[in-house]
């Protein structure tokens, strides 16, 4: 009897909510390595998948890209008040980190703006699962937020129909004063996020539609690129 559960690439892809092509690419890139049969077929052990899922970003990504289902209750904020409660716990946790004393409130503000944006822009319009996934790992110094909402392009097109693709939508969201909640003339949230992370030791990866906005600690500038995977909502990873 086999003690370790083996999964084919197709089953693993379905389990993680990605395509087999994505898994092949991750294997080639060394991001998530496959094992090989004697006939050179890729396969995965269940324990490899479990380990991969312990990564909070991979977990959030799998939730955004997978079939609609509620995330684990420990990370799920179906309403903004639950998000506020968990954000308060993050604030308390970061307050105890000595080297963050000068700017932990900035990190909490960044997370607050990204999370509250998800609720503000999708109120009454969630395509399937209401609310967001919000998780953090204070040891790895990572925070993830994800929603299965309308995404940035669709939200901004309501007020600026000339935006033609996801890359332009992300640039607009992070650099122009615009609100997806017309006729309200606000929308400073993501501009604030960009401004404060550029000034501090914070890194952001933000995905929506077929594009990503990246600010690394080294580059210190906003870089927006096209990506192969399509994120129908938003996915963010903050490292500090």
């Amino acid at each position, binding site marked *: 009897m086999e003690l370790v559960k083996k999964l084919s690439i197709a089953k693993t892809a379905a389990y993680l909510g990605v395509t087999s092509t994505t898994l092949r690419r991750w294997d080639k890139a060394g991001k998530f390595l496959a094992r090989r049969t004697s006939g050179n077929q890729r396969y995965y052990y269940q324990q490899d998948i479990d380990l991969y899922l312990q990564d909070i970003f991979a977990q959030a990504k799998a939730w955004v890209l997978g079939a609609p289902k509620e995330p684990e209750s420990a990370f799920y904020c179906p309403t903004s008040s639950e998000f506020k409660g968990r954000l308060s716990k993050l*604030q308390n946790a970061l307050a105890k980190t000595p080297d963050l004393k000068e700017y932990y409130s900035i990190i909490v503000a960044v997370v607050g703006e990204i999370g509250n944006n998800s609720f503000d822009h999708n109120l009454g319009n969630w395509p399937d699962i209401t609310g967001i996934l919000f998780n953090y790992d204070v040891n790895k110094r990572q925070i993830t937020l994800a929603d299965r909402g309308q995404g940035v392009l669709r939200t901004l097109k309501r007020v600026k129909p000339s935006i033609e693709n996801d890359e332009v939508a992300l640039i607009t969201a992070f650099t122009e004063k615009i609100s997806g909640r017309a006729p309200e003339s606000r929308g400073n949230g993501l501009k604030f996020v960009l401004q404060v992370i550029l000034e501090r030791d914070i890194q952001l990866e933000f995905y929506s539609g077929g594009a990503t906005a990246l600010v690394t600690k080294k580059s210190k500038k906003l870089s927006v690129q096209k990506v192969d995977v399509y994120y129908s909502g938003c996915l963010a990873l903050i490292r500090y």
Partner: protein
Amino acid sequence: MRIELKKFGNMLTSRQDGKEALAAIEPQLKTISEHTIIEIDFEGVITFTPSWADEFITKLSDRFGEKIVLTHTENPSVKATLRILKELG
């Protein structure tokens, strides 16, 4: 008139909470005289964002202009938020 923001909590982040805070002080705003200074005191506030500020500070500023005075604004997220409101406002 002095508004102590810490009475609304030490984490002021969402639009909804900003709206509710403004609604809570509305009865007091109706009774103030023409020359009354409105001091908004940030002491005790830890996390502050533009979303909350848009619903509270921006609306009070639009209504009362130079009669608004902000105090104890040393916290980094308060400073960063007030700066972006000024730049984009």
